[in-house]
């Protein structure tokens, strides 16, 4: 077998256009992945990474989802597409057995019809008619590889983010594919979860699979890759070994986040304390909170006190970062700021008065809370209507429109005012959600994991929006597991640990 010389997967994409779109999303993309090697496709938001990955793995089928000009070569077999009706039609089940894909939203791969992790892993084998004894062996083997052995009898719906990602990788890897495509495999994982996924990828490479990672950060995982492909605006602007591309202008232009690059903002903790001595915008006094036993939303919080005797004061113009591992209760803390959760003990004061009996919708005038999932927050037909929502009653028509346009300009969405929010790429949806909060000019901005899913351009816009807010005297509390980011942005870093905040 000359597997070491021949690429497992070779793709030449002249152009790929979704049905109904006028312009191609991908053009002139070439990719070759050899067995046992790691290839990183790096690109900013909307660069076409995900489309490329799904195309390689048969999740988007030429002819079915859009029209492809080019060729896909899997081992000795070569399929050529001309964008015509008599092009070959990919059999998704057979293709994906040999090219696995793990989407960014790992939950999307779950069948939703299997009640244990073991059966979920076996789902793809059942469909292909594998005898039961072989299936048991394959499930046991994949569970060992992915570190899921102890979780085999758990309900997939109860897994944590990192466990879910490993299950998704296991579901794709169980058929023994030659190629595995992973979309943002480390996104929104904490340090422990990221280490486990990186070990898993190492194991897959050792087993001889060609692994392709799609990422918008040149992070530790991407740096272990043998080959980089930089995607920008749907086409390859540079490719080569990481060492050669690390400082390349194409990388900087693409919007890829490079963690070690000097940040736009100098570390703020050196410059000033941020505390002004003015009356605090937000005050938490001896707050205690626990989810009711039995049906707590986060499973790790059951019966246990999530917040304990917690004190916090945030002054105008101050930026406070709250860090801590997944499940420490960071989001729970944030939900106390505007009354979505009410403390069992203690009290929450916003701008000097208690919010104990004020409805959330009213507190929202002074506290702007931004959630992790922008889709839940957006509901209007156009971007402009979305940002203007609730402003008209307070400001009048003209002022509300100019305020809305101002907020859109601040997040770089001025050109998209007439677009349906759901048609924006995920990162721009996050920025739009940020704009809806900023437009209301709240006294306190509370941001839950604001950096997740943002590329470099998005991070810069987020940074300037936070700057502008503090400049007019607003306070900012941001919750993040990204300690480096917290260090760069915040005046103070607090760690949530054992239900209390600790200065870092």
């Amino acid at each position, binding site marked *: 077998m000359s597997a070491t010389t021949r690429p497992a997967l070779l793709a030449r994409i002249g152009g790929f256009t979704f049905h109904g779109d006028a312009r191609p999303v991908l053009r002139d993309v070439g990719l070759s992945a050899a067995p046992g090697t790691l290839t990183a496709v790096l690109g900013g938001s909307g660069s076409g990474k995900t489309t490329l990955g799904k195309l390689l793995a048969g999740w988007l089928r030429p002819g079915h989802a859009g029209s492809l000009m080019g060729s896909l070569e899997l081992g000795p077999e070569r399929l050529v597409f001309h964008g015509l009706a008599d092009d070959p039609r990919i059999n998704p089940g057979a293709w994906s057995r040999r090219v696995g894909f793990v989407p960014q939203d790992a939950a*999307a*791969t779950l069948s939703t019809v299997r009640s244990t992790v073991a059966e979920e892993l076996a789902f793809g084998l059942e469909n292909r008619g594998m005898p039961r004894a072989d299936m048991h062996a394959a499930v046991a083997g994949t569970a060992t590889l992915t570190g899921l052995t102890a979780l085999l009898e758990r309900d997939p719906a109860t897994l944590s983010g990192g466990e879910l990602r490993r299950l998704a990788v296991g579901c794709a890897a169980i058929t023994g594919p030659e190629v595995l495509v992973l979309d943002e495999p480390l996104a929104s994982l904490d340090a422990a979860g990221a280490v486990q996924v990186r070990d898993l990828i190492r194991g897959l490479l050792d087993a001889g699979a060609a692994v392709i990672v799609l990422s918008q950060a040149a992070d530790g995982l991407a740096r272990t890759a043998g080959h980089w492909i930089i995607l920008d605006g749907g086409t390859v602007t540079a490719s080569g070994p990481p060492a050669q591309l690390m400082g390349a202008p194409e990388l900087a232009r693409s919007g890829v986040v490079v963690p070690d690059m000097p940040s736009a903002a100098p570390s703020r903790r050196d410059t000033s304390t941020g505390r002004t001595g003015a009356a605090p915008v937000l005050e938490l006094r001896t707050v205690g909170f626990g989810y009711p036993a039995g049906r707590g939303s986060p499973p790790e919080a059951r019966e246990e006190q999530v917040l304990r005797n917690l004190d916090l004061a945030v002054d105008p113009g101050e930026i406070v970062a709250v860090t801590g591992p997944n499940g420490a209760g960071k989001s729970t803390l944030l939900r106390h700021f505007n009354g979505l959760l009410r403390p069992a003990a203690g009290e929450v004061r916003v701008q000097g008065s208690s919010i104990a009996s004020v409805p959330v919708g009213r507190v929202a005038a002074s506290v702007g809370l931004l959630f992790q999932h922008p889709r839940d*927050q957006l509901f209007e037909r156009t971007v402009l209507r979305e940002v203007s929502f609730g402003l008209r009653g307070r400001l009048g028509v003209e002022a509300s429109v100019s305020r809305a346009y101002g907020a859109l300009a601040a997040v770089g969405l001025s050109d998209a005012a007439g677009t349906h929010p759901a048609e924006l790429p995920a990162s721009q949806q996050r920025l739009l959600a940020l704009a809806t909060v900023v437009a209301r000019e709240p006294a306190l901005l509370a941001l839950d994991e604001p950096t997740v899913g943002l590329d470099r351009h998005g991070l810069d816009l987020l940074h300037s929006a936070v700057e502008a807010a503090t400049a007019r005297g607003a306070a900012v509390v941001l919750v993040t597991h990204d300690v480096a980011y917290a260090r760069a942005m915040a005046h103070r870093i607090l760690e949530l640990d054992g239900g209390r905040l600790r200065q870092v």
Partner: protein
Amino acid sequence: MRARLHPLTALTAAGSVAVITVAADSWLLSLAVACAAGVLSVRAGVAGRVLPAAAVILAPLCLSLLMLHGLFFPEGHTVLAQWGPARVTTEGLGFALDLASRTAACVMVFLLFSFTVNVPDLVSALEARRVPAQFGFVLASTLTLLPAIAARLDRIRQAQESRGLVLRGGLLSRLGAVRLQMVPLVLALVDDAGNRAQALDARGFGIGGPRTSYRDVADPPAQRRFRAVALLLAAVAVALRLAASWPAAGLS
């Protein structure tokens, strides 16, 4: 755990009992069946869910039947009381009793089944019987999605309230709020469904050909024989009823 009823045995039992009860057309039998189902639900430890669910379904139906046939039954002859157009007749009350008890029996029996059956076992058993895998998918996926949707709707409401949406006021503003909540929900569900379709295809769901099952559902021979007998009894009951009532129902 494996010694329990095979899901198809439970389903066959529930279906046969319901059919026989309908065919027998006797309120005494119906009430006996309903009570038996109630007792079984207590013994299975699911009475706390079966009885309230049955009450919610049956209470309005029984009241409606009592009002309808108890007061207005033109076919009735034995009049017990009369106010204007409303006549209380023995026949009307009997008819209401017949139908209410019959529906109660069927509802209790089927609720007992659905609250005791292990859905993954049922899906697995159906697939092993060559029921299209798509049916099992729709059944199991819906039952998985329902609780997840409740949680998602809650997240949407929280996010929207955080943006200053105050849920209050008259019918129109409530309708407006419902629309605002529906749009992200429907959108997310349709989007997720698109992703799930790609994932299912990739995992060979639509591939056709023979399928196997990871889950092993024990099906003892005794239960197979029981199912055959139950189906036979139900068929006999239906045949007898059809034969007995056919002339009476003929074109007249």
